[in-house]
């Protein structure tokens, strides 16, 4: 009798990636702290990275993994820019949430 051995397939990774991406998306939509919003965007990018690796493996194509390095660099650059902007706003006032930033409307 065969033991019930479950081998993860590519689909599992794609589903996990979709779940992580969704968590990130929902996070951006419901959270109010800029730093948390920022982390959610990073989560979305890394979920996509997981997709790239899984799909690259399924297609037996090294490009799937190469792309991830490009995305990592972009994500790092985004952190630098994003934190720079957040710090410059925090200097102006303390404990900011995105709801406090409401001068622009119409």
């Amino acid at each position: 009798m065969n033991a019930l051995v479950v081998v993860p397939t590519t689909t599992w990774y794609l589903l996990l990636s979709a779940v992580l991406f969704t968590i990130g998306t929902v996070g951006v939509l419901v959270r109010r702290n800029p730093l948390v919003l920022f982390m959610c965007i990073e989560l979305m990018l890394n979920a996509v990275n997981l997709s790239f690796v899984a799909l690259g493996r399924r297609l037996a194509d090294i490009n799937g993994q190469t792309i991830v390095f490009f995305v990592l660099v972009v994500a790092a650059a985004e952190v630098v820019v994003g934190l720079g902007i957040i710090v410059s706003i925090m200097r102006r006032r303390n404990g900011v949430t995105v709801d406090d930033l409401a001068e622009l409307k119409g």
Partner: protein
Amino acid sequence: MIFAAGAFVGPSIDWYKMSPALVLVAGALGLILVGALTPQWRKGAYGFVAAASAGAAAVLAGMLWANLGENGAPSTLIGDALSFDHFSLFATFTIAVATLLAILVTNDYLEREDEDGPEVYALILASSVGGVMMAQANDLIVLFLGLEILSLSFYLLVASNRNRAQSGEAGLKYFILGGFASAFFLYGVALVFGSTGSTNLTTIGTTLAGQHPGNHSALLLAGVAMLLVGFAFKVSLVPFHAWTPDVYQGAPTPITALMGSVGKVAAFAALLRVFTVALPSRADDWGPVVLVLAIATLLVGSVLAVIQTDVKRMLAYSSISHAGFILVGLEAASHISNADSSLGVSSAMAYLFVYGVLVVGTLAVVSLIAGKGDNATTLGAFNGLGKTNPVLALGMTVLLLAQAGVPTTSGFVAKFGIIRASVSVESYVLAVVAMLAAVIAAFLYLRIMVSMWLSEPASTERREVPTASDIAIAATVAVTLVVGFVPSALLDLAALIR
């Protein structure tokens, strides 16, 4: 496969054909590096270097266009990563010209705010490089990198005025929503890569053309939808437009001009190329979506523009409405079985050139009116401009009439081209909606004109117009009128884009 061959052979690089982008990179790096190591330069020197770099890029793009000739075959650069054809050169030229004009306006803005330095110019040139990469990209990952170079520079530029709270707020909003959109775009790239096995636009196009068109892979459709959402954020299509008015109002005015011209041209060029090169065989799937987006964008943009009281917000909504017009061109290109569908892409590119020039000119005037602090942008600030500065008001009137699409201006030529493309593929509903939206939007431009010519000025003192802005406004008005009176000057060039 990279590891299949014994020795690694790099792709051949044609430096001359890449020169417009390289000149912009050199300008950006030179400014930031030399600028950091040397004491403050003379007034206007940073701006001059940046303008020279953008001007050189425009001249090189023009020379490459002339070399390519009328029947030059499209080719690719650096191992299929970039494409080299009339389409990419036209977009590159447009981006370089818009950058040059925006730099002229920025020069006066920075002088007025006492913030002259190399950083803003370096970022403007960097965003321009990103735009050129997007317009030339023949690979979704190269496109993504170009998009990020453009966007990251824009986030910083929008937040660059540290003396004005609105600037930082706009920067943060743009950053969060822009990052959000980039993630969607990237997920789209991943899914398209998964279903076609490639990120190269040409390869994707061939792979999909070889499959049965009824073969609806869920992975592919989801990927195309995600790509479209990412692009829709970047070019601000309704319902993904909510950031646009806030960011356009909060950003320093010359940066608003840059976003309206370079940002729009680059993102639309990329959108047009991805959908017409990689996905034409799935046009039956994305065509109707584009149709709905175009109708929503045209109507919502025009109607909301009319009820604004801040001129920068008005122009933001007007830019949304213009984006709808350009999307009409893409919709026309989606009727691939129709012989006239290529009109869609060429008319959209002509529209992008016309709009890219117009928006910089219009916002150059707004930047002058905004005054020190960059805050006086309400409609009331334009009161009586016709009495204090008749020439400036006349120039603004020409630019606004062109945006409204009045004959003998470039705006009419552009709008006519789009409507013609739409009608010739028998997409009548969209053509009618587009004309309706143009009529509604005309009201908004008339409101600005009324306050310029028919209201009394708060003070009768004449406003000083700095030289660089003067040149930029005069140049945009000249282009507007020349294209308006001699449409063939632009249309013959755009007709080469296929």
